[in-house]
């Protein structure tokens, strides 16, 4: 299964705006997603934006990236403008329906 548009977008933006190379940027975002229980294949723009603002700044600081917080805020703002992507029927969506929507 391919990585989601939101993941690709976040990685590309991070690579463009920081000193991280492609591999480092993708690895950093993957680690942040793992820490928050999300997956590169199914992460939505909204979820990615939250990870960008709440988790990635400290990951970037740990890697010695300057101005990480501002960069993440800018990427999160751009992510918020992305249209929602159909990431298929996730287990979470199935279990939401099994409870009658509750």
């Amino acid at each position, binding site marked *: *299964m391919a990585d989601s548009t939101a993941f690709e977008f976040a990685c590309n933006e991070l690579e463009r705006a920081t000193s991280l190379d492609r591999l480092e940027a993708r690895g950093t975002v993957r680690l942040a997603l793992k*820490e*928050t*229980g*999300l997956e590169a294949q199914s992460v939505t723009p909204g*979820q990615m934006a*939250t*990870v960008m603002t*709440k*988790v990635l700044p400290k990951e970037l600081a740990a890697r010695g990236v300057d101005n990480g917080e501002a960069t993440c805020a800018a990427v999160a703002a751009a992510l918020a403008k992305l249209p929602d992507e159909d990431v*298929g*029927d996730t*287990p*979470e969506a*199935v*279990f*939401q*329906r*099994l*409870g*009658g929507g*509750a």
Partner: protein
Amino acid sequence: VTGGAPPGFAEILSALSMLAYSLFAWVFALRLLNTVRGTRSIPEASVATGYLFIAGIGYPMVAASIGASESLGGTTSLSLQVAGIVVLRVGLAGIFVFTWQTFRAETAWAKAFTLVAIGMLAAITVHGIGELSRAPSFEAAVALEVSGPAAVASIGLAALAFAWPAAEALGYHVKLRRRQALGLANPVVVNRFLLWGIACSSSVFIAGVNLAATVAGRNILEYQPAMITSATLGIANSVLLILAFLPPAPYLRFVRRRAGLV
């Protein structure tokens, strides 16, 4: 309960357990099947089939075939039992399909695993029907169903049908707990994975107890420790499933309050 002896504590507890499980299954499955008509969603259709066929129809049929064997007569009881076993196995197949389609629809090994499991269920069912039809009496047929290699294979597959979703649900629960910390998951749904994971684990434990008793040469329809353990866990199982899938409003409020949403 076989014959005319009055039911003991274990039999009454078993009957209550089956009643609770069956009632849950009917309400849950009918609600889901009502929505499936419009959506044609495989996860809902398969889990509804699973619970309806296992708990709503299969277990009661098998229990009735044994409990009412004297009044039904050997041939009718045997037919009822065979039909109940077939229905049960279709239900187990439904649980395998649900787990595959919900957690790993895109994964080749999960598809292969599901197909192999369904193939094995079909094989032991066909083999079992052959054995039952050759049994000299209904009592002998029941004994065949609860002892020997076929019984071990049958209980083992039932354990597997619930062990897989238990592992998937509890693993997914851990992921969702992390998302919940960032406000990215509905606490009711997070809790639902936990409840269902525990309920499936409890089913695995029940199967394990029955498997151990069978391997030890005990008749699980008469061996009191196995009956009481299974029935007690069965009742707990029904409570967990109701809280997960048919949650009363106070429970929903409790979960949301605990998550700090209310």
